[in-house]
């Protein structure tokens, strides 16, 4: 038997019929405002094309009107950018709130791991050194055994003692195998206790320390990055009012004209 239908269920319409789909997910900015700007920008682009189609400016009147056109472009840019910032602000504020809420926890976790890693690295290093010492001794012993077995084999060969010879050869092989095993690199990592954690290993990184800047500079003097740095430094001084550019060796001054 079906459950009875109550009066409320008969009257109440379905939710989807009241509001359109997606009504709870509005776009992140005002479409209307943007459409207004798009229209104005399009008009300015058409006008700009008319200017560029001239190829050259020949009269004072055109130069002054083009100056006004640039002022208009700048003014509209400022308007659009101000609107952009205003539309973006609530999202930026929300993003900042999320960051402010989550970042302290992330910082704690990262700092905790960073503080723990050196303890593991120190342990791996200590253990590796002990292991290497042990292996060094084992390798030395194995090599000695192999040497003694070699001598025994030679003696057995001379005495035609086949039984002794076979034993000595076998002993030599076993000793050589032990030596090879002892010479294998020592593992420098720590695995997971549970099986779920990632293995942690130590690694060495190298970096240069500049002892003699002049020598290093001479070595890299033709590198493009060095030329860029020199150009940047010299240009800053050439543009500075309180620097005597004649005192800078090895440069010439180039001038570029642009409208501003």
């Amino acid at each position, binding site marked *: 038997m079906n459950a009875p239908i109550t009066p409320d269920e008969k009257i109440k319409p379905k939710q989807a019929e009241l509001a359109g789909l997606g009504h709870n997910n509005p776009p992140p900015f005002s479409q209307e405002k943007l459409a207004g700007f798009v229209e104005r920008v399009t008009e300015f682009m058409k*006008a700009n094309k008319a200017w560029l189609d001239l190829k050259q400016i020949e009269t004072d009147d055109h130069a002054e009107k083009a100056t006004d*056109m640039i002022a*208009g472009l700048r003014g509209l840019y400022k308007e659009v950018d101000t609107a952009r910032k205003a539309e973006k602000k609530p999202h930026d504020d929300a993003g900042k709130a999320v960051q402010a809420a989550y970042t302290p926890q992330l910082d704690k976790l990262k700092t905790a791991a960073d503080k723990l890693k050196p303890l593991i690295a120190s342990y791996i290093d200590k253990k590796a050194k002990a292991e290497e010492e042990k292996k060094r001794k084992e390798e030395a012993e194995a090599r000695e055994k192999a040497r003694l077995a070699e001598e025994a084999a030679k003696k057995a060969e001379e005495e035609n003692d086949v039984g002794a010879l076979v034993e000595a050869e076998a002993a030599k092989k076993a000793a050589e195998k032990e030596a090879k095993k002892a010479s294998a690199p020592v593992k420098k990592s720590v695995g997971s206790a549970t099986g779920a954690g990632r293995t942690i290993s130590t690694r060495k990184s190298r970096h240069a320390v500049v002892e003699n800047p002049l020598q290093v500079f001479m070595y890299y003097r033709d590198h493009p990055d060095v030329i860029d740095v020199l150009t940047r430094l010299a240009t800053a001084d050439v543009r500075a009012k309180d620097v005597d550019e004649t005192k800078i060796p090895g440069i010439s001054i180039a001038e570029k004209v642009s409208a501003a």
Partner: protein
Amino acid sequence: MRYARSIEELHQWHQEALSNPDIERHEIEPQCGWYKMRRVKLGPWVPVLITVEQDIDPDTGQLADDERMRCEVDGINEDKIEEIWSHLKPISEAAFHQLFENRRSIPAMKDDYTPINLALTPITP
């Protein structure tokens, strides 16, 4: 005997002012020439013409009366010439006529008392 000043004499100050923006300007001595001014800050340029009326006796060739200054702002007679004199910027005669043309063709220049917002409508060639 008073002779009428020549066109060159009447426009001497204006000619010098075109090439020397720092030329001395006396407040109560407007000079003949072509100018532009604004009625409000950031408002459109308005053309201003200052001329001199000279009554010349045809028999003697001399002035029959004192020279009289005349001022037209946007083609309309303006009496308060001393009040606007310090706001006038000297321009060439060609620029003066071009300004009339621009005021006719650029919609943003139609209202003298409204500052122009160049970001609203682009200025075309």
